[in-house]
């Protein structure tokens, strides 16, 4: 089997900010234009190796700050790793930051075209699929209203629907499925399973570990910037939950 995703020795370093993300220009000038000093940087991910097969769904668990979102952002090409490599076969679809990829002032229809084109569809394919995308979301008459008038649930449905109707070979989902109600979650899982039957590899990060053990084939546990364990979802989650019990959490929590 040719893997859809192959991650090797992946490492990502972030710079630590002093006060605000907007580092005032004067501060930089007075400090001199020194490149990010080693003391200023820390590793969010280091030495991560894994593969995902086509049609496989892999869950990513870990505490806040363990690097789950960073891992998915690296795979989506939003961030660049300092070490190692990521190899992906085919088109990548991503649901990373809910609502961030939708423009509030543009209509649902315009957002469908934007996200569709960025997912590798042609203009004609976007035209052909708009009806399917809308049917899944149930936004109906809101299609030509600005997205700022949508509820959180509608935005989530729209973003999900666009991403899953663009034929992704690899689908990256960050904490996404768990914003909606149960009906929405079930519909999403059904849609994802249909994609998986067609060979889409799915990577899903979540705190909600029961969802991962129910739906994922395997799970990947990130802990302290490293890959703690990877294997059958049930086994990994049992150990993850045993480790993140309140007593254990108090003992090792840094933040």
């Amino acid at each position: 089997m040719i893997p859809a995703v192959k991650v090797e020795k992946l490492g990502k370093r972030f710079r630590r900010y002093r006060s605000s993300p907007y580092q005032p220009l004067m501060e930089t000038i007075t400090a001199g234009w020194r490149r990010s000093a080693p003391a200023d940087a820390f590793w969010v991910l280091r030495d991560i190796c894994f593969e995902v097969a086509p049609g496989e769904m892999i869950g990513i668990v870990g505490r806040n700050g363990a690097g789950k979102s960073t891992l998915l952002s690296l795979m989506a090409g939003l961030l660049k790793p300092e070490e190692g490599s990521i190899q992906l076969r085919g088109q990548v679809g991503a649901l990373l930051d809910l609502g961030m990829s939708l423009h509030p002032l543009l209509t649902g229809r315009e957002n469908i075209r934007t996200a569709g084109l960025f997912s590798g569809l042609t203009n004609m394919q976007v035209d052909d699929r708009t009806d399917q995308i809308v049917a899944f979301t149930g936004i109906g008459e809101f299609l030509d209203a600005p997205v700022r008038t949508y509820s959180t649930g509608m935005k989530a449905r729209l973003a999900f629907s666009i991403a899953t109707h663009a034929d992704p070979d690899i689908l990256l989902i960050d904490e996404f499925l768990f914003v909606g109600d149960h009906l929405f979650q079930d519909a999403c899982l059904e849609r994802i399973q249909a994609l998986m039957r067609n060979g889409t590899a799915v990577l899903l990060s979540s705190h909600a570990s029961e969802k991962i053990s129910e739906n994922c084939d395997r799970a990947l546990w990130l802990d302290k910037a490293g890959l703690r364990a990877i294997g059958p979802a049930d086994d990994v989650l049992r150990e993850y939950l045993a480790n993140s019990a309140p007593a254990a959490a108090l003992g090792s929590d840094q933040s």
Partner: protein
Amino acid sequence: MADRPMIASSQASPDKADTLRWRQAHESPLSWKQWRNLGDQFLHLVAVELRLLHKRSMIGMAWTLVNPIVQLVIFTVVLGRVLAVDTLYYPVFLCCGLLCWNAFSESLTMASASIVNTRYVLYQPGFRPAMMPLVFVVMGQAHFLLSLSILAALLVYFQIPLGWPVLALPLLLLVQGLLTLALAFPLAALSVSFYDTKHLLSVALRFLFFLTPILYATDNFPRVLQILYAANPLTHLIRGYRAIFIDGVWPDWPALIGVAAGSAIVLVVGYRFFEARRFRFIEDIE
């Protein structure tokens, strides 16, 4: 507990993977289909950003004409009549300078803020941020083209005949676009990390306005000032527009080629600076 062996997937796959034509994610050269996709994305973004810019106003794009007309009237009255500047066809002379300057400063201001203001595209997988400055420079040039209708009206009013040199207009527009884009890349990248960039740019543009021969001809200026003006690439562009529209002669080719070559060099350096910082955009933007 964690020592118990888990199935390590990297050992499960055969080692002949390198023969299977892996696509190195996000760094591989683009296929023809991906280039076409980029073209579609570009045209869509231009349309969307144009609509966002004009959607809430009743007369929409016509506002791009109001501002230069008001400036034109004020400067013509103040400089042309009150201070009695002695220049042939002064309103037309002024119009060439003002339209070129407005297009340059507006394009550059919009393009410099292009990454900060369009974060929705930053979160799309596979998005090329370098597209955004280009989108706004193309938008600015479209506005410029539209505003040239004011100049056309003035040319008709003063009955200035057009000659063959007008054919150099697309070339002048292209060089101006190149110059704007060259400066927009580094400024757009800096704007993400340094909020002060847009304020510095607006101060710099205010200085540059008076170092550009917009309101007056520089022929009788002292030599030191002449050199200063000649060092400004916009001077040569504005003289180019005046040459083809008012004097009916071809622009000063060596100067124009100089501007184009300089812009091209800055463009390459600026683009590389932009690309070197592009992966910090998501980290820095907030």
